[in-house]
Protein backbone atom coordinates (compact mmCIF):
# COMPACT_ATOMS: atom_id res chain seq x y z
CA UNK A 1 0.00 0.00 0.00
CA UNK A 2 1.23 3.46 -0.89
CA UNK A 3 1.45 5.45 2.34
CA UNK A 4 1.57 8.76 0.57
CA UNK A 5 -1.68 7.99 -1.17
CA UNK A 6 -3.21 6.64 2.05
CA UNK A 7 -2.28 9.85 3.81
CA UNK A 8 -3.79 11.99 1.05
CA UNK A 9 -6.98 9.94 1.08
CA UNK A 10 -7.37 10.34 4.84
CA UNK A 11 -6.97 14.11 4.48
CA UNK A 12 -9.46 14.19 1.62
CA UNK A 13 -12.13 12.23 3.49
CA UNK A 14 -11.54 14.25 6.65
CA UNK A 15 -11.89 17.57 4.83
CA UNK A 16 -14.97 16.57 2.89
CA UNK A 17 -16.80 14.28 5.34
CA UNK A 18 -15.84 15.01 8.89
CA UNK A 19 -17.97 18.14 9.23
CA UNK A 20 -21.17 16.29 8.36
CA UNK A 21 -20.21 13.34 10.57
CA UNK A 22 -19.79 15.70 13.51
CA UNK A 23 -22.92 17.65 12.60
CA UNK A 24 -24.95 14.42 12.65
CA UNK A 25 -23.27 13.14 15.82
CA UNK A 26 -23.55 16.32 17.86
CA UNK A 27 -27.04 17.03 16.57
CA UNK A 28 -28.35 13.55 17.32
CA UNK A 29 -26.52 13.41 20.65
CA UNK A 30 -27.97 16.76 21.77
CA UNK A 31 -31.46 15.81 20.69
CA UNK A 32 -31.06 12.47 22.47
CA UNK A 33 -29.74 14.17 25.60
CA UNK A 34 -32.64 16.63 25.71
CA UNK A 35 -35.33 14.03 25.12
CA UNK A 36 -33.53 11.45 27.25
CA UNK A 37 -33.23 13.83 30.22
CA UNK A 38 -36.92 14.62 29.98
CA UNK A 39 -37.85 10.93 29.91
CA UNK A 40 -35.49 10.05 32.79
CA UNK A 41 -36.71 13.01 34.82
CA UNK A 42 -40.34 11.94 34.36
CA UNK A 43 -39.54 8.36 35.27
CA UNK A 44 -37.64 9.19 38.43
CA UNK A 45 -39.80 12.01 39.76
CA UNK A 46 -43.27 11.03 38.59
CA UNK A 47 -43.04 7.25 38.41
CA UNK A 48 -46.16 5.12 38.36
CA UNK A 49 -47.99 4.81 35.05
CA UNK A 50 -45.84 7.44 33.32
CA UNK A 51 -42.78 5.38 34.16
CA UNK A 52 -44.28 2.18 32.77
CA UNK A 53 -45.36 3.95 29.59
CA UNK A 54 -41.90 5.43 29.07
CA UNK A 55 -40.36 2.01 29.72
CA UNK A 56 -42.50 0.62 26.92
CA UNK A 57 -41.72 3.47 24.52
CA UNK A 58 -37.95 3.25 25.05
CA UNK A 59 -38.12 -0.52 24.59
CA UNK A 60 -39.87 0.01 21.24
CA UNK A 61 -37.31 2.63 20.18
CA UNK A 62 -34.41 0.36 21.05
CA UNK A 63 -35.94 -2.42 18.95
CA UNK A 64 -35.90 -0.40 15.74
CA UNK A 65 -32.76 -0.68 13.60
CA UNK A 66 -31.26 2.80 13.13
CA UNK A 67 -31.34 2.53 9.34
CA UNK A 68 -35.07 1.73 9.43
CA UNK A 69 -35.68 4.74 11.69
CA UNK A 70 -33.82 6.95 9.21
CA UNK A 71 -35.96 5.70 6.35
CA UNK A 72 -39.15 6.25 8.38
CA UNK A 73 -38.21 9.86 9.16
CA UNK A 74 -36.77 10.65 5.70
CA UNK A 75 -39.46 9.06 3.51
CA UNK A 76 -42.27 9.52 6.03
CA UNK A 77 -41.86 13.25 6.49
CA UNK A 78 -40.03 14.10 3.27
CA UNK A 79 -37.55 16.43 4.95
CA UNK A 80 -33.94 17.34 4.31
CA UNK A 81 -31.72 14.27 4.62
CA UNK A 82 -29.32 15.76 7.19
CA UNK A 83 -32.22 16.85 9.40
CA UNK A 84 -33.86 13.44 8.97
CA UNK A 85 -30.66 11.68 10.02
CA UNK A 86 -30.27 13.88 13.10
CA UNK A 87 -33.87 13.31 14.15
CA UNK A 88 -33.81 9.57 13.49
CA UNK A 89 -30.52 8.93 15.30
CA UNK A 90 -31.48 11.38 18.05
CA UNK A 91 -34.79 9.70 18.84
CA UNK A 92 -33.17 6.28 19.13
CA UNK A 93 -30.36 7.70 21.23
CA UNK A 94 -32.85 9.35 23.59
CA UNK A 95 -34.02 5.87 24.57
CA UNK A 96 -30.48 4.83 25.49
CA UNK A 97 -29.56 8.11 27.15
CA UNK A 98 -32.72 8.11 29.27
CA UNK A 99 -31.78 4.66 30.56
CA UNK A 100 -28.27 5.82 31.44
CA UNK A 101 -29.51 8.92 33.26
CA UNK A 102 -32.29 7.09 35.01
CA UNK A 103 -30.00 4.34 36.27
CA UNK A 104 -27.50 6.84 37.64
CA UNK A 105 -30.23 9.04 39.14
CA UNK A 106 -31.81 6.13 40.96
CA UNK A 107 -28.48 4.91 42.29
CA UNK A 108 -27.58 8.38 43.56
CA UNK A 109 -31.04 8.98 45.04
CA UNK A 110 -30.97 5.64 46.87
CA UNK A 111 -27.94 6.76 48.83
CA UNK A 112 -28.38 10.50 49.09
CA UNK A 113 -32.04 11.47 49.00
CA UNK A 114 -32.71 10.64 52.66
CA UNK A 115 -29.64 12.61 53.70
CA UNK A 116 -30.74 15.62 51.64
CA UNK A 117 -34.28 15.49 53.03
CA UNK A 118 -33.00 15.08 56.58
CA UNK A 119 -31.30 18.49 56.57
CA UNK A 120 -34.63 20.06 55.65
CA UNK A 121 -34.33 20.37 51.86
CA UNK A 122 -37.60 19.74 50.03
CA UNK A 123 -37.81 17.21 47.21
CA UNK A 124 -37.01 19.73 44.48
CA UNK A 125 -34.14 21.26 46.48
CA UNK A 126 -32.69 17.80 47.14
CA UNK A 127 -32.90 17.03 43.45
CA UNK A 128 -31.27 20.28 42.37
CA UNK A 129 -28.52 20.63 44.98
CA UNK A 130 -27.64 17.01 45.71
CA UNK A 131 -28.93 14.53 43.13
CA UNK A 132 -28.54 16.42 39.84
CA UNK A 133 -24.90 17.53 40.22
CA UNK A 134 -23.88 13.95 40.95
CA UNK A 135 -25.97 12.55 38.10
CA UNK A 136 -24.30 14.94 35.65
CA UNK A 137 -20.85 14.00 36.89
CA UNK A 138 -21.45 10.26 37.01
CA UNK A 139 -23.22 10.05 33.66
CA UNK A 140 -20.43 11.64 31.62
CA UNK A 141 -18.41 8.47 30.87
CA UNK A 142 -21.47 6.47 29.80
CA UNK A 143 -22.78 9.40 27.74
CA UNK A 144 -19.43 9.78 25.98
CA UNK A 145 -19.63 6.10 25.18
CA UNK A 146 -23.10 6.67 23.75
CA UNK A 147 -21.65 9.52 21.69
CA UNK A 148 -19.16 7.18 20.01
CA UNK A 149 -22.03 4.81 19.21
CA UNK A 150 -23.93 7.63 17.50
CA UNK A 151 -20.79 8.71 15.70
CA UNK A 152 -20.38 5.25 14.19
CA UNK A 153 -24.11 4.89 13.49
CA UNK A 154 -24.08 8.21 11.62
CA UNK A 155 -22.42 6.31 8.75
CA UNK A 156 -25.79 4.80 7.83
CA UNK A 157 -26.92 8.27 6.75
CA UNK A 158 -25.12 7.09 3.57
CA UNK A 159 -28.38 5.30 2.78
CA UNK A 160 -30.30 8.57 2.51
CA UNK A 161 -27.53 10.37 0.67
CA UNK A 162 -25.85 12.43 3.39
CA UNK A 163 -22.25 13.05 2.39
CA UNK A 164 -20.35 12.32 5.61
CA UNK A 165 -17.08 10.42 6.11
CA UNK A 166 -18.34 6.98 5.11
CA UNK A 167 -20.22 8.25 2.03
CA UNK A 168 -17.16 10.23 0.95
CA UNK A 169 -15.01 7.12 1.21
CA UNK A 170 -17.46 4.99 -0.79
CA UNK A 171 -17.87 7.64 -3.49
CA UNK A 172 -14.12 7.91 -3.76
CA UNK A 173 -13.73 4.15 -4.00
CA UNK A 174 -16.43 3.89 -6.66
CA UNK A 175 -14.79 6.63 -8.71
CA UNK A 176 -11.31 5.09 -8.47
CA UNK A 177 -12.53 1.49 -8.75
CA UNK A 178 -10.21 0.83 -5.82
CA UNK A 179 -11.62 0.03 -2.37
CA UNK A 180 -8.72 -0.80 -0.09
CA UNK A 181 -7.25 2.66 0.46
CA UNK A 182 -10.52 4.57 0.95
CA UNK A 183 -11.91 1.94 3.35
CA UNK A 184 -8.70 1.74 5.38
CA UNK A 185 -8.56 5.54 5.46
CA UNK A 186 -12.06 5.99 6.76
CA UNK A 187 -11.50 3.19 9.30
CA UNK A 188 -8.46 5.02 10.62
CA UNK A 189 -10.49 8.21 11.00
CA UNK A 190 -13.26 6.45 12.97
CA UNK A 191 -10.70 4.69 15.16
CA UNK A 192 -8.76 7.86 15.96
CA UNK A 193 -11.90 9.79 16.90
CA UNK A 194 -13.33 6.97 19.04
CA UNK A 195 -10.00 6.38 20.80
CA UNK A 196 -9.80 10.08 21.62
CA UNK A 197 -13.27 10.12 23.11
CA UNK A 198 -12.84 6.94 25.12
CA UNK A 199 -9.54 8.26 26.46
CA UNK A 200 -11.35 11.38 27.67
CA UNK A 201 -14.04 9.16 29.21
CA UNK A 202 -11.45 7.16 31.10
CA UNK A 203 -9.81 10.32 32.44
CA UNK A 204 -13.16 11.54 33.73
CA UNK A 205 -13.93 8.11 35.12
CA UNK A 206 -10.71 8.19 37.09
CA UNK A 207 -11.55 11.62 38.44
CA UNK A 208 -14.96 10.34 39.51
CA UNK A 209 -13.40 7.36 41.28
CA UNK A 210 -11.52 9.85 43.44
CA UNK A 211 -14.88 10.96 44.77
CA UNK A 212 -15.44 7.42 45.98
CA UNK A 213 -17.90 6.15 43.43
CA UNK A 214 -17.68 2.45 42.66
CA UNK A 215 -16.79 0.86 39.36
CA UNK A 216 -20.36 -0.22 38.74
CA UNK A 217 -21.66 3.32 38.43
Amino acid at each position, binding site marked *: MDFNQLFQTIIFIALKGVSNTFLLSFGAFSLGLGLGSLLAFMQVLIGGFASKLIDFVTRVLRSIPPILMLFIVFYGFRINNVVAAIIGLGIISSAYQSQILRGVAEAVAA*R*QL*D*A*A*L*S*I*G*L*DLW*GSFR*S*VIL*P*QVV*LLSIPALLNEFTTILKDSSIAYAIGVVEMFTTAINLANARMEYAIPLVSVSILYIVICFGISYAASLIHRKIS*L*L*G*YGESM
Partner: protein
Amino acid sequence: MKTLLQAIDIHKYFGKQHVLKGINLDVYEGETLVIIGPSGSGKSTLLRCLNLLIKPDRGRIIFDGVDITSGGVDINKVRQEIGFVFQSYNLFAHLTAIENVVLGLVKVKKMSREEARRVAAEALLSVGITEDLWSKYPAQLSGGQQQRVAIARAIAMNPRLLLLDEPTSALDPELTVEVLNVLEKLSEKRMTMIIVTHQLGFAMRAADEVVFMEDGKIVEKGPPEKILLNPEKERTREFVSRLMELYRMERMRRQ
Protein backbone atom coordinates in the same frame (compact mmCIF):
# COMPACT_ATOMS: atom_id res chain seq x y z
CA MET B 1 -39.20 17.89 82.38
CA LYS B 2 -40.74 18.95 79.11
CA THR B 3 -41.73 16.33 76.55
CA LEU B 4 -40.14 17.17 73.21
CA LEU B 5 -41.33 14.22 71.18
CA GLN B 6 -44.13 11.81 71.71
CA ALA B 7 -44.80 8.78 69.53
CA ILE B 8 -48.28 7.33 70.00
CA ASP B 9 -49.17 3.84 68.79
CA ILE B 10 -46.93 3.85 65.71
CA HIS B 11 -47.56 1.06 63.20
CA LYS B 12 -45.66 0.37 60.00
CA TYR B 13 -46.13 -2.32 57.39
CA PHE B 14 -43.74 -3.17 54.55
CA GLY B 15 -46.09 -5.09 52.29
CA LYS B 16 -47.54 -7.79 54.52
CA GLN B 17 -44.74 -7.53 57.04
CA HIS B 18 -45.79 -5.77 60.25
CA VAL B 19 -42.56 -3.99 61.18
CA LEU B 20 -43.71 -1.65 63.94
CA LYS B 21 -46.54 -2.94 66.13
CA GLY B 22 -47.74 -0.04 68.19
CA ILE B 23 -44.75 1.90 69.52
CA ASN B 24 -45.29 4.40 72.32
CA LEU B 25 -42.34 6.58 73.22
CA ASP B 26 -41.80 9.81 75.14
CA VAL B 27 -38.61 11.78 74.71
CA TYR B 28 -37.83 14.60 77.13
CA GLU B 29 -35.94 17.73 76.31
CA GLY B 30 -32.23 17.28 76.96
CA GLU B 31 -32.29 13.53 77.39
CA THR B 32 -30.18 10.90 75.69
CA LEU B 33 -32.24 7.87 74.79
CA VAL B 34 -30.55 4.70 73.59
CA ILE B 35 -32.45 2.04 71.66
CA ILE B 36 -31.06 -1.50 71.62
CA GLY B 37 -32.47 -4.67 70.10
CA PRO B 38 -31.69 -7.47 67.65
CA SER B 39 -31.43 -6.67 63.95
CA GLY B 40 -34.80 -6.67 62.23
CA SER B 41 -36.55 -5.50 65.37
CA GLY B 42 -37.63 -2.25 63.73
CA LYS B 43 -35.21 0.16 65.41
CA SER B 44 -34.08 1.89 62.21
CA THR B 45 -37.63 1.98 60.85
CA LEU B 46 -38.83 3.63 64.06
CA LEU B 47 -36.08 6.24 63.86
CA ARG B 48 -36.97 7.02 60.22
CA CYS B 49 -40.63 7.28 61.15
CA LEU B 50 -39.84 9.92 63.76
CA ASN B 51 -38.70 12.45 61.13
CA LEU B 52 -41.06 11.01 58.52
CA LEU B 53 -38.38 9.74 56.15
CA ILE B 54 -40.77 6.78 56.36
CA LYS B 55 -44.44 7.54 56.77
CA PRO B 56 -46.04 5.49 59.55
CA ASP B 57 -49.25 3.69 58.56
CA ARG B 58 -50.98 4.38 61.85
CA GLY B 59 -50.33 6.42 64.95
CA ARG B 60 -49.29 9.97 65.70
CA ILE B 61 -46.03 11.77 66.30
CA ILE B 62 -46.19 14.90 68.40
CA PHE B 63 -43.08 17.07 68.10
CA ASP B 64 -42.88 20.12 70.32
CA GLY B 65 -46.65 20.09 70.81
CA VAL B 66 -47.48 19.76 67.10
CA ASP B 67 -48.87 16.62 65.45
CA ILE B 68 -46.44 16.27 62.53
CA THR B 69 -48.31 13.25 61.14
CA SER B 70 -51.39 15.38 60.42
CA GLY B 71 -51.73 16.72 56.88
CA GLY B 72 -51.28 20.46 57.36
CA VAL B 73 -47.71 20.43 58.65
CA ASP B 74 -44.76 21.39 56.42
CA ILE B 75 -42.55 18.36 56.97
CA ASN B 76 -39.49 20.07 55.48
CA LYS B 77 -39.73 22.68 58.25
CA VAL B 78 -39.96 19.95 60.86
CA ARG B 79 -36.95 18.12 59.45
CA GLN B 80 -34.86 21.28 59.88
CA GLU B 81 -35.38 20.83 63.59
CA ILE B 82 -34.63 17.10 63.63
CA GLY B 83 -31.10 16.10 62.66
CA PHE B 84 -30.40 12.62 61.34
CA VAL B 85 -27.11 10.71 61.33
CA PHE B 86 -26.93 7.58 59.19
CA GLN B 87 -25.10 4.32 59.70
CA SER B 88 -23.25 4.73 56.40
CA TYR B 89 -22.63 8.49 56.93
CA ASN B 90 -24.37 9.45 53.64
CA LEU B 91 -22.26 12.54 53.11
CA PHE B 92 -22.85 14.34 49.82
CA ALA B 93 -20.07 12.75 47.76
CA HIS B 94 -19.64 15.65 45.33
CA LEU B 95 -19.04 18.22 48.08
CA THR B 96 -16.06 18.82 50.37
CA ALA B 97 -16.38 18.32 54.13
CA ILE B 98 -17.16 21.96 54.82
CA GLU B 99 -19.50 22.28 51.82
CA ASN B 100 -21.47 19.32 53.19
CA VAL B 101 -22.19 21.39 56.27
CA VAL B 102 -22.65 24.69 54.41
CA LEU B 103 -25.28 23.36 51.98
CA GLY B 104 -28.15 23.14 54.46
CA LEU B 105 -27.24 26.44 56.11
CA VAL B 106 -27.36 28.29 52.78
CA LYS B 107 -30.21 26.47 51.03
CA VAL B 108 -32.44 25.80 54.03
CA LYS B 109 -31.50 28.35 56.69
CA LYS B 110 -30.90 31.01 53.99
CA MET B 111 -27.66 32.19 55.56
CA SER B 112 -25.10 34.15 53.55
CA ARG B 113 -22.13 32.05 52.42
CA GLU B 114 -19.72 33.80 54.83
CA GLU B 115 -22.00 33.30 57.78
CA ALA B 116 -22.64 29.69 56.77
CA ARG B 117 -18.91 28.99 56.52
CA ARG B 118 -18.38 30.48 59.96
CA VAL B 119 -21.15 28.32 61.49
CA ALA B 120 -19.91 25.27 59.60
CA ALA B 121 -16.34 25.84 60.76
CA GLU B 122 -17.52 26.04 64.34
CA ALA B 123 -19.57 22.83 64.00
CA LEU B 124 -16.65 20.98 62.39
CA LEU B 125 -14.22 22.08 65.08
CA SER B 126 -16.65 21.00 67.79
CA VAL B 127 -16.50 17.43 66.46
CA GLY B 128 -12.72 17.55 66.10
CA ILE B 129 -12.51 18.04 62.33
CA THR B 130 -9.60 20.42 61.93
CA GLU B 131 -9.12 22.95 59.16
CA ASP B 132 -6.76 20.77 57.11
CA LEU B 133 -9.66 18.37 56.46
CA TRP B 134 -12.30 20.91 55.47
CA SER B 135 -11.56 20.92 51.76
CA LYS B 136 -11.26 17.14 51.48
CA TYR B 137 -13.95 15.10 49.74
CA PRO B 138 -15.76 12.42 51.77
CA ALA B 139 -13.91 9.62 49.98
CA GLN B 140 -10.61 11.09 51.16
CA LEU B 141 -11.63 10.92 54.83
CA SER B 142 -11.60 7.95 57.20
CA GLY B 143 -14.93 6.48 58.29
CA GLY B 144 -14.65 8.11 61.70
CA GLN B 145 -13.92 11.49 60.13
CA GLN B 146 -16.83 11.08 57.71
CA GLN B 147 -19.22 10.25 60.51
CA ARG B 148 -18.04 13.24 62.52
CA VAL B 149 -18.59 15.50 59.49
CA ALA B 150 -22.09 13.98 59.23
CA ILE B 151 -22.69 14.85 62.89
CA ALA B 152 -21.41 18.38 62.24
CA ARG B 153 -23.77 18.64 59.25
CA ALA B 154 -26.66 17.74 61.53
CA ILE B 155 -25.79 19.91 64.55
CA ALA B 156 -24.87 22.97 62.46
CA MET B 157 -28.58 23.24 61.63
CA ASN B 158 -29.11 23.76 65.36
CA PRO B 159 -31.72 21.00 65.67
CA ARG B 160 -33.97 20.44 68.66
CA LEU B 161 -33.57 16.69 68.33
CA LEU B 162 -30.85 14.46 66.90
CA LEU B 163 -31.60 10.96 65.62
CA LEU B 164 -28.64 8.62 65.16
CA ASP B 165 -29.05 5.27 63.42
CA GLU B 166 -26.19 2.95 64.48
CA PRO B 167 -23.65 5.74 64.01
CA THR B 168 -20.64 3.55 64.83
CA SER B 169 -21.51 0.13 63.48
CA ALA B 170 -19.75 0.69 60.15
CA LEU B 171 -16.55 1.75 61.93
CA ASP B 172 -13.44 -0.02 63.22
CA PRO B 173 -13.20 -0.09 67.03
CA GLU B 174 -10.47 2.57 67.02
CA LEU B 175 -12.64 4.95 65.01
CA THR B 176 -15.74 4.09 67.04
CA VAL B 177 -14.16 5.74 70.06
CA GLU B 178 -13.68 9.12 68.34
CA VAL B 179 -17.34 9.20 67.30
CA LEU B 180 -18.58 8.07 70.72
CA ASN B 181 -16.54 10.80 72.40
CA VAL B 182 -18.30 13.39 70.26
CA LEU B 183 -21.68 11.93 71.17
CA GLU B 184 -20.84 11.91 74.88
CA LYS B 185 -19.91 15.57 74.66
CA LEU B 186 -23.23 16.34 72.96
CA SER B 187 -25.04 14.37 75.63
CA GLU B 188 -23.30 16.37 78.37
CA LYS B 189 -24.42 19.56 76.63
CA ARG B 190 -27.98 18.22 76.90
CA MET B 191 -28.61 17.85 73.18
CA THR B 192 -31.76 15.74 72.93
CA MET B 193 -30.76 12.52 71.20
CA ILE B 194 -32.20 9.18 70.23
CA ILE B 195 -29.41 6.76 69.39
CA VAL B 196 -29.72 3.25 68.06
CA THR B 197 -26.50 1.59 69.19
CA HIS B 198 -25.08 -1.52 70.78
CA GLN B 199 -22.21 0.30 72.47
CA LEU B 200 -23.04 -0.73 76.04
CA GLY B 201 -20.26 1.27 77.64
CA PHE B 202 -21.54 4.38 75.93
CA ALA B 203 -25.14 3.62 76.92
CA MET B 204 -24.04 3.13 80.53
CA ARG B 205 -22.17 6.44 80.65
CA ALA B 206 -24.34 8.70 78.53
CA ALA B 207 -27.91 7.40 78.35
CA ASP B 208 -30.69 8.71 80.56
CA GLU B 209 -32.95 5.97 79.33
CA VAL B 210 -32.49 2.69 77.46
CA VAL B 211 -35.22 1.08 75.37
CA PHE B 212 -35.10 -2.58 74.40
CA MET B 213 -37.02 -3.33 71.19
CA GLU B 214 -37.83 -6.68 69.68
CA ASP B 215 -40.15 -7.76 66.88
CA GLY B 216 -41.58 -4.30 66.32
CA LYS B 217 -42.45 -3.73 69.97
CA ILE B 218 -40.86 -2.07 72.96
CA VAL B 219 -40.17 -4.87 75.43
CA GLU B 220 -38.77 -2.83 78.27
CA LYS B 221 -37.46 0.62 79.01
CA GLY B 222 -35.83 2.33 81.95
CA PRO B 223 -32.58 3.82 83.24
CA PRO B 224 -29.43 2.15 81.85
CA GLU B 225 -28.45 0.53 85.16
CA LYS B 226 -31.79 -1.24 85.28
CA ILE B 227 -32.07 -2.35 81.64
CA LEU B 228 -28.42 -3.30 81.19
CA LEU B 229 -27.68 -4.77 84.61
CA ASN B 230 -30.93 -5.82 86.15
CA PRO B 231 -33.73 -6.10 83.58
CA GLU B 232 -37.17 -7.38 84.50
CA LYS B 233 -38.01 -9.31 81.33
CA GLU B 234 -36.29 -12.57 80.52
CA ARG B 235 -35.89 -11.57 76.82
CA THR B 236 -34.07 -8.40 77.75
CA ARG B 237 -31.77 -10.32 80.07
CA GLU B 238 -30.88 -12.81 77.31
CA PHE B 239 -30.16 -10.11 74.76
CA VAL B 240 -28.12 -7.91 77.09
CA SER B 241 -26.03 -10.81 78.38
CA ARG B 242 -25.19 -11.78 74.80
CA LEU B 243 -24.21 -8.19 74.06
CA MET B 244 -22.08 -8.11 77.22
CA GLU B 245 -20.27 -11.22 76.08
CA LEU B 246 -19.51 -9.69 72.68
CA TYR B 247 -18.40 -6.51 74.42
CA ARG B 248 -15.96 -8.49 76.63
CA MET B 249 -14.60 -10.44 73.66
CA GLU B 250 -14.07 -7.21 71.78
CA ARG B 251 -12.13 -5.72 74.72
CA MET B 252 -10.01 -8.84 75.09
CA ARG B 253 -9.22 -8.82 71.40
CA ARG B 254 -8.01 -5.27 71.66
CA GLN B 255 -5.76 -5.90 74.67
